């Protein structure tokens, strides 16, 4: 079983080669077709169509309420679908009950059985499958070793830290060798430092096992660092699917760009457009940037990251604004400025600027995206 589509593994991170302890069951793809989930007259998922190939690490990314957890629960069988179908290769699985689907799942609050030891927690799925106890013990040992919890097998979940509980939850999900591992915002309850450590763990475990994983998160940094492919959702619909690089540099819609960190959005009059570039007159300056396809209509929005908007060199066409506040970020300063037209700009500066002082800001057109202004 080998994984596909992943960038080169980080040197020094790879464990010594040994006989594979786990192997996921073979399947080629998971297909969601027109999946729909309603709660009363509210549609949490609308016409979701997605194909996930074996071995991929797919992140479902979006703000709260976008339907990503709902989608995961539908795949797991914890929620029935109101319409559409889910298939594993040719087999239709959305009609199966949760316990018949055999997917491993890691819950946001870990959902460890508080009255069972770590070993019993991890071995629970194997016990449900009627695996012999000697075999269960062996596989639980392997799982504990994989998540670096070898000495904690006899403890109760209540005696473990958050990060350790998280690892037990992961071990429990993968020890059954499921075709699919589902993770529902598993890191959101950990503090920042632990989150970074666990992210590395998850990456390492995925690299070792190569199991197909669907990972739900609202944190774009997490998605970018973990996933092979990212699916951005909003209000129950897919907005964009792509590799982390594609989503980072080339978001397809304004809301996706907003989610990927393009905090600056300035609206203006579209001056020209063609050949993948466009220019927007925001009143006082003209901003150039890249586009996806042709833009129609008179108004457009220029989007750029705070890091890409910097004080301009002399002689370059720049946006004039007044600094409102500035904060020290260690390597540089981040500031908030306002144009005479009232637009807010988040910018980055190598030197401290005075509040109230004027500043001329510009961005490299390659880092600016121009979108059609959405009708309000």
């Amino acid at each position: 079983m080998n994984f596909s589509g992943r960038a080169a593994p980080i040197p020094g991170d790879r464990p010594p080669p040994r006989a594979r302890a786990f192997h996921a069951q073979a399947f080629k793809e998971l297909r969601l077709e027109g999946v729909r989930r309603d709660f009363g007259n509210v549609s949490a998922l609308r016409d979701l169509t997605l194909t996930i190939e074996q071995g991929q690490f797919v992140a479902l990314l979006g703000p709260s309420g976008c339907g990503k957890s709902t989608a995961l629960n539908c795949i797991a069988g914890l929620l029935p679908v109101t319409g559409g179908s889910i298939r594993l290769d040719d087999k239709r699985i959305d009609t199966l009950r949760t316990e018949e689907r055999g997917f491993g799942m890691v819950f946001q609050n870990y959902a460890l059985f508080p009255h069972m030891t770590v070993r019993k927690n991890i071995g629970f799925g194997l016990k449900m499958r009627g695996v012999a106890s000697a075999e269960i013990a062996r596989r639980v040992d392997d799982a504990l070793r994989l998540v670096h919890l070898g000495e904690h097998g006899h403890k109760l979940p209540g005696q473990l830290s958050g990060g350790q509980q998280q690892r037990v939850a992961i071990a429990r999900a993968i020890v059954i060798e499921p075709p699919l591992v589902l993770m529902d915002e598993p890191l959101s309850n950990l503090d920042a430092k632990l989150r970074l450590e666990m992210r590395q763990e998850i990456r390492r475990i995925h690299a070792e096992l190569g199991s197909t994983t669907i990972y739900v998160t609202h944190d774009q940094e997490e998605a970018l660092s973990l996933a092979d492919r990212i699916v951005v959702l909003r209000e129950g619909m897919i907005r964009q699917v792509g590799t982390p690089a594609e989503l980072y540099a080339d978001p397809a819609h304004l809301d996706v760009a907003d989610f990927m960190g393009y905090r600056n959005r300035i609206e203006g009059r579209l001056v020209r457009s063609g050949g993948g570039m466009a220019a927007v007159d925001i009143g006082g300056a003209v901003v150039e940037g890249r586009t996806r396809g042709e833009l129609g209509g008179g108004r457009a929005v220029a989007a750029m990251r705070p890091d890409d908007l910097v004080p301009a060199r002399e002689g370059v066409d720049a946006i004039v604004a007044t600094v409102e506040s500035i904060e020290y970020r260690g390597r540089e300063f981040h500031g908030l400025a306002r144009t005479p037209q009232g637009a807010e700009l988040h910018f980055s500066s190598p030197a401290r600027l005075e509040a109230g002082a004027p500043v001329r800001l510009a961005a490299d057109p390659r880092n600016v995206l121009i979108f059609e202004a959405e009708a309000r």
Partner: protein
Amino acid sequence: MNRSLTERLWAIALWVVVAFFILNLFAMIAAVVTSSFSTRWLGTWFPAGFTTRWYYSAWDEFQLDDVLIVTFEVVFAVVALSGLLGVPAAYAMARRDFPGKRLLMLLFLLPLLVPSITYGIPMATVLYRTGLGGTMSGVILANLVPSLPFVILVMIPFVEQIDPRIEAAARVFGAGTLRLFVHVLLPLLLPGVLAALLLVLVRTIGMFELTFLTSGPTSQTLVVSLYYAVFAAGVRAEQSIDAMAVIYMATTLVWLLIALKFVNPTQIVARAKVPAR
């Protein structure tokens, strides 16, 4: 998650049991009400005729006007006293940690866990020995024993819910203890206090054993009078006893319905649930 046939059958069986219980409960209440309005009812499914005269005769016969007055005097005294003593005590328990607190908590918990007849007999003995037995004061004191802890136990979580930093903030801005109480605590605690006192009210109306053990002929509450009426049932007409029972039911239900506007039905049950350690 789809349900199999056995699961469906099991669910149906359970609902049948619940329905059976509720049906019989309502039918039993209906039987009492029907009987209280009947002229004669012997050996038939339904009474021969209907009348309201039993209510008048019960009113006279059992001196219900006096009994109702006594009942409400007792109930309101108990409510007022348990509120006056219980709310400050709950505040202290919620806000302070001191040596012996667990012992004190046990003291406040026990009257709710020990059934009233078990401690009622020794308590009645003491009351009679001190001359309070058989008087209204004795009845009020007796009923206060389970009501006071009830108020404390209901109010402690309410007080804990109020962020102590709000009180600290009020003090920082210059509020003395009285103004802190009047302007900050009282408004925040009012819903909880209201809920607790309404629950005490409903419980005290139905509190039988303690009043039974400590009341005299002029200090009986409605429920105790009803007991005596049923006890001597051979002497009196059944319908007038049923009329009295209906009056008791109506009294209780009116306050129950008012209470339910503010509280969850589950809280009426002695909520001495031991939290997980």
